[in-house]
């Protein structure tokens, strides 16, 4: 018999799934050609309910369903991050769907909710079976979401690329799971940890490598990042906001569990090289991009690299730094893409830098908000991005990774160039674009406000979130 408290430990996921189903059931009731906004509201309520459920969850830390999930500060931390992402994405989609005339609103919101369920499960699952399924849930829903702009060939292409390469990478992950299973005889993270603590296993090395390939693909770290620019460019902007943050954060959570909770061996140089490659390739690749979505895609590769620096730093400082980075990266990136999604207008026509010329004049508020997100991405003080980088590099230095830190800081300086380019276009170029600027709709406004507040909050008073992250790191290592 399963105790009732176990259901509380998956309560947010349950709530979200139920609301996803409600969305699907409400969809046919709505008029065929009408606005899908009511669905958005349902989804919004669902997300808020899930947030509340997450808050409720904090009183019930522990494992559930025969060691399938584990609710602790670590998982709650990522739950909140993922749910906040979903919240902002739903808000950003609120008007986006109508603007882009995406008819499949029911499926759209339902997929976001279900995908979020997958991501949340990824962070709380401690059994590789469940992790795998959750990973697939979040992946498949994003594959589909990527193809949501059905009239656009780019969207279909993005979907296909994401799907094929994603499945390809998943196979590697799965192979890794098979190996770890062979090595340790179990697929439970903490059982694996127990085994690896007592016994050496050659297979485990191979297993970690293969799982890193699969997860590295999900977090878009080099050299498994190649899909990112294409997919981000082709996918609907709010979906990019989601997929560049949510599954990434969740995959990082899994990676943290796999690398740290299991005490997996031998991965340090692999992660080190991957971090360096990600930062460098991401930043250099972004230098000449003209398409803002694509540019941000490259930047997200670089950010994965910074996060991996924290991984390389390891220990509690590294883990907490990585968690903090994931949170603040989510806040700023989701915000940036939300702005992009609004500005892109119908058919996502206006996504190149030239379209951004003079935005500071045409739409000062939108430009100012985007500027703050970009500054945060650069890592300028008073923004979350600054503290994120700060913690990561200081963790790296505490672990004596001087060279990695130096490469990292140089990279973050180079990165300033292309973010600055967007600011330059917005404020310093003369207006040439005919891109219209619509008023900021309410939904998007709220969404932007949330991510803005989060970004600034993390930049001014990071202490509290960091404490949670430290607590989470402790829980993870327990």
């Amino acid at each position, binding site marked *: 018999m399963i105790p009732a408290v176990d259901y509380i430990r998956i309560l947010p996921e349950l709530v979200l799934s139920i609301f996803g189903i409600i969305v699907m059931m409400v969809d046919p009731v709505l008029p065929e050609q009408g606005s899908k906004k009511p669905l958005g509201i349902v989804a919004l309520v669902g997300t808020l309910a899930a947030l509340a459920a997450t808050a409720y969850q904090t009183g019930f830390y522990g494992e559930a369903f025969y060691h399938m999930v584990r609710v602790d500060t670590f998982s709650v931390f990522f739950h909140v991050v993922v749910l906040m992402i979903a919240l902002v994405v739903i808000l950003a989609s609120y008007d986006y769907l109508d603007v882009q005339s995406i008819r499949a609103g029911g499926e759209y919101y339902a997929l976001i909710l279900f995908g979020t369920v997958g991501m949340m499960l990824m962070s709380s699952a401690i059994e*590789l*079976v469940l992790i*795998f*399924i959750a990973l*697939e849930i979040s992946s*498949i829903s994003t*594959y*589909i979401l990527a*193809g949501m702009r*059905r009239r*656009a*060939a*780019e969207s*279909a*292409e*993005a*979907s*296909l*690329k994401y*799907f*094929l390469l994603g*499945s*390809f990478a998943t*196979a590697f992950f*799965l*192979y890794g*799971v*098979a*190996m770890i*299973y*062979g090595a340790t*005889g*179990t*697929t439970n993270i903490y059982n694996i940890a127990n085994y690896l603590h007592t016994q050496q296993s050659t297979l485990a090395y191979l297993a970690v490598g293969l799982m890193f390939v699969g997860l590295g693909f999900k977090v878009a770290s080099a050299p498994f990042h190649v899909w990112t*620019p*294409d*997919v981000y*460019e*082709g996918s609907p902007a709010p979906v990019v906001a989601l997929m560049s943050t949510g599954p990434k954060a969740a995959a990082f959570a899994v990676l943290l569990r796999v690398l740290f909770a299991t005490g997996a061996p031998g991965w340090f140089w692999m992660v080190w090289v991957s971090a360096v490659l990600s930062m460098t390739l991401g930043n250099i690749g972004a230098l000449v991009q003209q398409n803002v979505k694509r540019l941000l895609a490259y930047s997200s590769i670089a950010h994965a690299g910074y996060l991996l620096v924290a991984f390389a730093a390891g220990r509690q400082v590294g883990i907490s730094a990585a968690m903090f980075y994931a949170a603040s990266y989510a806040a700023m990136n989701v915000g940036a893409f939300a702005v992009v999604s609004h500005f892109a207008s119908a058919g996502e026509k206006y996504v190149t830098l030239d379209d951004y010329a003079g935005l500071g004049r045409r739409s000062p508020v939108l430009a100012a908000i985007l500027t703050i997100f970009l500054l945060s991405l650069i890592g300028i003080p008073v923004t979350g991005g600054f503290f994120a980088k700060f913690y990561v590099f200081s963790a790296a230095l505490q672990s004596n990774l001087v060279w990695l830190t130096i490469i990292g800081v140089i990279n973050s300086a180079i990165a300033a160039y292309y973010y600055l380019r967007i600011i330059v276009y917005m404020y310093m170029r003369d207006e040439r674009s005919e891109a219209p600027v619509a008023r900021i709709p309410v939904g998007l406004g709220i969404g932007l406000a949330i991510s803005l507040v989060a970004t600034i909050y993390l930049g001014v008073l990071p202490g509290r979130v960091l404490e949670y992250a430290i607590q989470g790191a402790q829980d993870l290592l327990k």
Partner: protein
Amino acid sequence: MVPLSYYLVLSAILFGCGVAGFLIKRNIITIFLSIELMLNGVNLSFVAFAAQLKSLDGHIFVFFVMVVAAAEAAVGLAIIISVFRTRETLNVDRVNLLKL
């Protein structure tokens, strides 16, 4: 009696064939088939390990992998159809609007 490593090598060969197929085939559907081949290879590992460990977890895993593969197949084929609609081709090399 068959040594476990034989199964593992066979599984690796199948996986490798899948990877190779992904890399050299041009038809999207064939590429997708290659992915299935990779999954089959993985499955073999699971089952072999399960037999060695006398644990059924591996079988369960295989079961879930099959379910996932089925789901992926449904979505994947739908995506392929959708791509075919917009691009009128199944040649993966022609699906390259997005690049650089």
